């Protein structure tokens, strides 16, 4: 037995020799652990840079957000749409729409990053900390706003906005999702943007990062979506009055590689590194062939009805016989404007009509704003609104200009819902949608991806369909 013990002892030594702690640590190649990845201010800044890239280039504003909203709207030719796009277009989206799920996850991935940044602010120098935090909060708010617009009914759907909104992700935890009310959702968004506005730099000349005007522009958008016209008017005015931005003189430069003077926030195009607008080019561009997304004849005829409006040229009905396509995104590459001065003018003009009764100077300002858009569209001032234009007429004209100006930019859907939810019956149009749906029909908002319910069986999904 002694010998046996001796041999087993020898073997035990061999066993120990083979035990190697390092051998059991095999991180995936090219992947760094969080403790090593987030150690310095530069690391946090790099995480922040990624948020912009994801927002402008990979996910939201590369076209996924805009095209999703357009699928739900009334500016697309429906007959050739299939699969997930057809489902959205029929306003019957379901939990299995993977396009919607990817967009949803992508936007929340930015939120996850912003939360990580906020958690790691102690790594940032005191001098830079307010800016970094404000940029993160600004983007976190923008993400929640865009998700809220697509996945929950518009403010005004219920009188106290107690209807269900979205999951608010204020930290990087993996807690199962639960929906806040729309009031809580918009309160959070506004608080975040206001906080960001305070801490952000006044102006970033490259316009590729958030500054005060970015926060204000989005505050204007948020309030406008809520039909809170006073705040929308005021915040749009702050942006416009900053004089940092000027309208492009021609219509084509907003989506080109030439730096657009009207971009308040944008993603630049750097060939081979980031070339934003991928989804817009993929589905709208008719540069090399008939695109997937085509425009309805009804819309073409509507724009054609405004004789002399040069924006009709965006709707090309000659290149592909029998088909109309939007050539706004035909450039091989272009800078992606995320929020623009044009939108601020359109927002302030319509808001001005709404607040004309309480702000005496607003009507004239609004008329001037909308005339800037009209003059550029027609190439002259023959169609300008007269100074005697009433508030109601201004509102009507601002809505028209907004629709034509922002064709294919994902705005139309939100106006259908906003105008339907207008607090004043006289200015409310419940079927602003040309396809005949009421603004608050269930299918006008997207169904949540199944992943949300997967993580929480009690998660309340949206009601589907019922629009067409």
């Amino acid at each position, binding site marked *: 037995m002694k010998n046996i013990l001796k*041999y087993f002892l020898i073997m035990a030594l061999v066993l120990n020799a*083979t035990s190697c702690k390092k051998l059991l640590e095999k991180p995936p190649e090219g992947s760094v652990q969080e403790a090593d990845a987030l150690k310095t201010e*530069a690391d946090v800044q790099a*995480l922040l840079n990624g948020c912009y890239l994801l927002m402008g280039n990979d996910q939201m504003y590369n076209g996924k957000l805009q095209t999703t909203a357009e699928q739900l709207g009334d500016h697309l030719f429906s007959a050739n749409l299939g699969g997930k796009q057809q489902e959205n277009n029929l306003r019957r989206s379901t939990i299995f729409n993977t396009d919607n799920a990817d967009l949803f996850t992508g936007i929340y991935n930015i939120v996850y990053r912003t939360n990580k940044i906020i958690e790691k602010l102690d790594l940032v120098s005191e001098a830079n900390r307010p800016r970094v935090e404000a940029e993160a909060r600004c983007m976190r708010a923008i993400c929640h706003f865009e998700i809220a617009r697509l996945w929950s009914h518009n403010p005004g759907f219920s009188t106290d906005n107690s209807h269900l909104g979205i999951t608010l992700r204020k930290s990087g935890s993996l807690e199962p999702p639960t929906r806040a009310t729309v009031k809580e959702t918009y309160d959070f968004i506004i608080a975040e943007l206001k906080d960001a506005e305070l801490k952000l730099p006044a102006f970033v000349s490259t316009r590729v990062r958030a500054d005060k005007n970015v926060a204000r522009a989005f505050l204007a958008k948020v309030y406008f979506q809520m039909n809170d016209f006073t705040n929308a008017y005021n915040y749009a005015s702050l942006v416009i009055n900053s004089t940092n931005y000027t309208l492009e003189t021609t219509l084509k430069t907003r989506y080109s590689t030439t730096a657009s003077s009207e971009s308040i926030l944008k993603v630049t195009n750097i060939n081979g590194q980031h070339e934003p607008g991928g989804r817009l080019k993929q589905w709208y561009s008719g540069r090399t062939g008939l695109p997937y997304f085509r425009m309805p004849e009804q819309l073409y005829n509507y724009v054609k009805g405004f004789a002399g409006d040069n924006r009709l040229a965006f709707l090309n009905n000659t290149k592909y016989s029998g088909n109309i396509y939007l050539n706004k995104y035909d450039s091989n590459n272009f800078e992606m404007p995320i929020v623009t001065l044009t939108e601020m003018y359109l927002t302030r003009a319509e808001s001005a009509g709404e607040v004309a009764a309480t702000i005496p100077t607003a009507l004239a300002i609004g008329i001037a704003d909308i005339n800037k858009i009209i003059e550029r569209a027609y190439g002259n001032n023959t169609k300008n609104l007269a100074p005697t234009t009433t508030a109601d007429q201004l509102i009507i004209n601002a809505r028209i200009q907004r629709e034509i100006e922002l064709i294919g930019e994902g705005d139309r859907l939100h106006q259908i819902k906003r105008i339907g939810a207008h607090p004043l019956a006289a200015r409310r149009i419940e079927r602003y949608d040309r396809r005949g749906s009421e603004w608050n029909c269930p299918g006008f908002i997207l169904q949540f991806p199944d992943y949300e319910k997967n993580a929480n069986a009690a998660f309340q999904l949206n009601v589907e369909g019922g629009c067409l």
Partner: protein
Amino acid sequence: MKISLKQIRKICIMLFFSGLSVTAFAQNSISGVVTNSKDGLPASGVTVTVKGSKTATQTDEKGSFIITAPSNGILVFSSVSYARQEVAINGKASLAVSIASSTTSLDEVVVVGYGTQKRREVTGAITKVSGEKLSSVAAPSFEAALQGKAAGVQVVQGSGLAGSSSVIRIRGIGSISAGGDPLYVVDGIPITSDQFLRGDAGGMNQNPLASINPNDIESVEVLKDAGAAGIYGSRGANGVILITTKRGKSGRPKFSYSNKLGLVTYTQKPEFVNGKEYMQLKQEAWQNDGNVGEVGSNYIPGGLTFAQANANNTDWWKEVTRTGFINEHNLSMTYGTKKLKTFLGTTYGNSESYIKRNSYERQAVRLNVDYNIIDNLKISLNSAYNKGINNRIDNYQTIAAAQSNLLPIYPIYNPDGTYSTISGNPVRYLNETKFRNTDNRYLGGLALEFSPIKDLMIRASGSLDYLESFDDQYESKIITGDARGGIAKRYPLWVTNYNANVTASYLWTPNTTNKFNFLLGTETQESEIKNTNGDIYSWGQEDPLYKNKGIYKDSLNKFINDKSRKKQVVDNSTFVSFFGRVNYTLKEKYVFQFSARMDGSSKFGPNNKYGFFPAASAAWLISEEKFLQNSKIINSLKLITSYGIVGNSNIPTGRYYYGYGSTRNYNGSPVLDPNNIGNPDLKWETLRNFDLGVDFSLLNNRLSGELSYYRKVTVDQLLEPGLGASTGFQKSWRNLEGGKILNEGLELTLNYMIIKTKDLKVSIGGNISSNYNEVLKLGPIGPDALQGGFNDTRIAEGYPVGTNFLVRYFGVDPKDGLPIWLDRDGKQTKTFSLDHRVLVGKVLPDFSGGINSDIQYKGFELRSLWTYVSGGNIYDGSAKYQNVGNNWNVRRDLLDRWVKPGDVAKYPRLTSSVTNYPGLGTNDNYNSTMFLYDASFVRLRELSLGYTIPQNVIKRTPFTTAKLSVSGYNLLTFSKYPGADPEIARDFQNPQDRNMSPNITYLTPTQSKTFIFSLNLNF
């Protein structure tokens, strides 16, 4: 008669020993011949021992032996391959002994983890299948040939694609996201068997096991319970398949040659409408939608006019299929001396499938050498090179397309003779592309066995499983349409598996009633998968890169140098393990075994780095008890039971890290991207496994069998999905807290020798397995959390793994032809909604198994194997698209439709889009019980007629045996499934999909029907 030096030496030694002992006993020299009772052939290598003494010898290649023994003594004949047999000498000088193979004997040697045991010592559930039974079958891979041969082993054969993988499940499935495949161990080397190394490229999961040569296999042991598989710890939960390759045998060089020549076609052709019928259906849908007149031009797919569409009638199935040819040749040699034993085997085989350009070519060579350096030191080499060339086709461009988007109204060629490309064109694809996967696999191990003292064996082994795989794709200029010409692309992949283990085993026999067998060991394994981060390509090529290796090397170097490509590690996992086993036999009838393994792995998080897996088992050889020793009915009876904990760690490595990557920039500034949600608590999945079984042999060994009951409960399931998307991620690896999945079942194997005479032997056998699977607890996750990837299956509490979650289809409203659904409460509705879905149907069968028969008359042998599955469902995921509105061809079985008011039909009215059915937003969601079918089937898997040429005919030839046979596979199938083939293992998206969706079809190519002529020669 010539006497060799060796024989003289043997005789001298025997004389020497007999001289020593002659004073004590009346010793005689006994000679004899031992033959195999089955075929009468010489049984070489059989140990002949004089009972009660240490005198022993071995039979030579002619089965002959000479031994000195008392005239009233008893000789014991034993061997790995034969049942132990005792023969009384009774004063005879020569003996003729017919020895039975050990398949039903308690003395049969069985390969277990890290060693061997006699069947009587085995306390776990182990099924042994001989290599001959696997290699004789026409199967795409050796593991597929296990079908119907082992109770509790469910084998769902792969599709008709060459080299396709089968789904193997041992006693059910308890995993969700982690791989549910068994661990494959070849000669002690846990090998790479990952079916997802190439994802599901081309509509098929590449099977890395396909390159392994079935002709090299001596036996396969399937370890099914914790008593058997517990020694594999964190990798034993799905069962273990031990593959033992052939080794050299004593005697002069012996050669064996076999071949297979055969024809391959499909089991069943799905029937589709022709061009004219298709247009009629289009017209019908057009009118059903309220249109009048001839079907609108915008509605005819492919931009064809009504007249053009009506003029075409292409049979796309015919264009992509053929009669395939099988051509296989195997040659092997064994040679053995006292010191050196060698096995050398080589194979060439090419198996064409019935799909044009699709074949699997196997080239293999194996050299196994055992060399006794000194009496107590042996070195063993296992060495195999396997080359598998899969001449692939993209399923979705050929055979699947022929069943779906390729309409009969589409032409093959345009009027100008160019290829039509309306919706792909398989003729163009087959002529103008190449797609080939080449696996070069080296499997080698070197082991040193040292016995420093009696009964102590120390074994150290190191092994390498290296797989170099090239996926070559080529497109001619006609396909690329590029001025640069054709493009040749290659996707290389390298998988390296190092394994080293040291074991010490000690047999301690303190007295005749007690016997202990100790095993202690340690093992390390590292597995690494590398690829290039993209394809290596070259433009302007006329041929694929496998024909231009220089261009591949140049391109690879160029891409590496310009940093557009790099070799990268995509998975690198390690295990460090310690294990031990004690097997205690009391009075030769009570056996107790304890085993334990501790596994550390790079797959587990820092808070759970090591797992401990104990198992206890016992066996009672009831037939050895006095009260049964004289039984005329019971020859052997053994009860076994085991309980143990085993694990499943079949997940990618390093998933517990919070990962960040940094490869991009934003306006010139660096970007950091989070790419993984980590989990430091991540650990193995745990299986608690109880087994109770009985092995028996009755009626003079004519009836034998096994009956087993098992209960397996899996907890801490490894789970990847189910993370709320609002976290910013859709997946993260974690253990399902509180999750519990039950597999409980019964297995019965019976073999009965009905007639056993000199000339006629008739036997029948079979097995049946019933596995009850239920998800006992799942926790607060949604009903769609656990999906089968592409396939519409779910895991839900109270239901089996792989349940269909579908809207119930009630039927067609005879008034308007619209479908009527049932909502969740069973109320009829015409509005489709995913909210109406309920859990119905299941992919797992109630029973499965096989029935075999064997009739031998003189030299003839007729064998058959039927396999069957009872219960379970098939979901046809493609049927929802098989409609004119979707511009897919229409299967004839789906034509029973509503046409006019009053019609009672199986399927609803045709329409230009199923979105015209209220509530449906897309064809993708058109899932319902309308396409759920009964999965039961019975299949004549194998029918084989063989003829062994009598010895008197071949005695003047160099051959010792010669056998001819003709066989047919998948000849008959009986099923209610109206689609092509009821046995379905489609391409899967990931292991979770594979766990949940074996019976979901999506244009899965029907299985092959094969006719084989084969010849086996020994010389």
